[in-house]
């Protein structure tokens, strides 16, 4: 009898333990590969690591050096310009397309996938396509001139001051359809009765959207901005494929800066410091969002 009880006891204990056991590989992976690695990179950013990690403590020298580098300032400025325009234009196009598509459009089922398919492509593919499309000798400029508009010029991709805007164009092309889908889902979730009531009160279409619909889309706005901001900071492949960081270093972003300083210029300490700053930027955007998400779910 006692034996039987202890066996049952063991079984319940095992059942109690199983969930945690099942979760443990994931927790271990997170502890080592995410948070452990973050700590390691933060540590490296305070050392004199060059080609290989070194453990000689330097203090904040790398950060001082980093913020003294012209290339880093270029990368940070580019990111600011890129992120602002990218988030702004994607949101604007996404919202416009969603509102227009929501007007009982015939052929919505055809149009929606056309807006969205670029999201399925790799940034390398997008970059390859746009690199050609924007090339003055082969792409848009050439086509316009062949079509008889002799004075047409579009050389942004070869222009140090304008090249970063070509990155914006390609990135907007890739993700604005996705933002449209987010807003469209938001619009379809709005109760029609509210709109009908406002129409009966004599609200015009314009004020209907400005006063009622757009404020109701707040959660969609928030999600869109958070996701786009995070994509912007992580942008790497698109720049590599579209401009290679050029002309010169004109389209370098923090992600490409980090890669080249760490792996080709043998300044791992500085590379690590730049990665830490990228992480802090994303954390500043994401942490409040995640915190809100968790609190609401409870």
């Amino acid at each position: 009898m006692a034996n039987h009880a202890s066996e049952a006891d063991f079984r319940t204990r095992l059942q109690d333990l199983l969930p945690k056991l099942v979760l443990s590989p994931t927790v271990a992976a997170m502890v080592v590969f995410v948070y452990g690695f973050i700590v390691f990179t933060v540590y490296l950013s305070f050392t004199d690591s060059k080609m290989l990690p070194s453990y000689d403590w330097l203090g904040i020298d790398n950060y001082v050096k980093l913020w003294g580098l012209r290339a880093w300032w270029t990368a940070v400025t580019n990111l600011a310009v890129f992120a602002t325009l990218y988030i702004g234009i994607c949101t604007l196009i996404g919202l416009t397309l969603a509102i227009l598509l929501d007007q009982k459009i015939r052929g919505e089922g055809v149009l929606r996938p056309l807006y969205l398919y670029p999201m399925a492509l790799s940034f390398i593919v997008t970059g390859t396509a746009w690199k050609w499309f924007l090339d003055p000798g082969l792409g848009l400029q050439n086509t316009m001139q062949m079509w008889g508009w002799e004075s047409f010029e579009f050389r942004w991709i070869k222009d140090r001051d304008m090249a970063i805007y070509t990155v914006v164009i390609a990135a907007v092309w890739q993700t604005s359809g996705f933002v449209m889908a987010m807003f469209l889902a938001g619009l379809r979730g709005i109760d029609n009765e509210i709109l009908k009531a406002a129409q009966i009160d004599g609200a015009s279409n314009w004020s209907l959207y400005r006063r009622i619909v757009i404020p109701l889309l707040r959660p969609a706005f928030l999600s869109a901005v958070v996701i786009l901001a995070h994509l912007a900071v992580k942008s790497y492949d698109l720049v590599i494929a579209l401009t290679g960081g050029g002309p010169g270093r004109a389209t370098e972003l923090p992600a490409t800066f980090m890669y080249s300083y760490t792996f080709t210029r043998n300044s791992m300490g500085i590379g690590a410091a730049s990665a830490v700053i990228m992480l802090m930027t994303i954390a500043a955007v994401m942490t409040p969002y995640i915190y809100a998400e968790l609190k609401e779910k409870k």
Partner: protein
Amino acid sequence: MSVASQDTAVRTGGFVRATIYLVLIMFALFYLVPFYVMLSNSLKPLAEVTGGNMMAIPQTWTIDAWLAAWSTAQIGVEPTGLKPYFLNSILMVVPAVAISTILGALNGYVLTKWRFRFDNIVFGLLLFSCFIPFQIILIPMARMLGIMGLAGSTPGLVLVHVVYGLGFTTLYFRNYYAAFPTELVRAAQIDGAGFFRIFWRIMLPVSGPIAVVSIIWQFTNIWNDFLFGASFADVDSMPMTVALNNLVNSSTGVKEYNVHFAGAILAALPTLLVYIVAGRYFVRGLMAGSVKG
């Protein structure tokens, strides 16, 4: 979602409607043109590509560029075409997607139906891992793969993609299972069903839709990844995206644009196919991480 009464009931006149259609069609062209240019130029001989108008349809139709991109184009130093790298990508994507989805399902099950004291913290840490810039883990990951003997190998890439995909897959299944009545799980427990039995008999049969979302999301992300491939793969394990970039941006020889385009479409084909077959789920997957529910 497509219930008519939920459409915004704004009344508009004929002129306004015409303008709306015009704007919508202009945007459709904006999204289509780059792809059209790639496709039509991949079917032209090189002379016609460099000498002609990119918007023109081919005068001489040829699939030579496609054949070259697939089996003879110069990638790095080897004239192998993209074929071996396409296979590398498949060998990497299939196990990585399978493992991360299965683990995500189990995690989501534990986090919603077997809650314990710090489960929310665990989930928060997982969620944050979805959004870290991967630059922060590149250096230690390179070292770790070396220590584990997985440097430059496909299993190494699988490991990397599983680890950094777990946050998303767990998130999907957790949010999905959260809506599933816990009472059913408790009732099964009282009937004597154990942890795995409940998962197998009760949770899995209803998991179809979210499994599709998770698989599509992981497949698209891992297939399209460039950073990890460029950082951790060597010639024998190089995925498609890295090979394509090598093909397009190699500085030697004549630039065979038609071959580049054919290669780019080849690299895009698997995810495009998935998107065409299961686009609905693709959209849901994109949004599951952001919009509640």
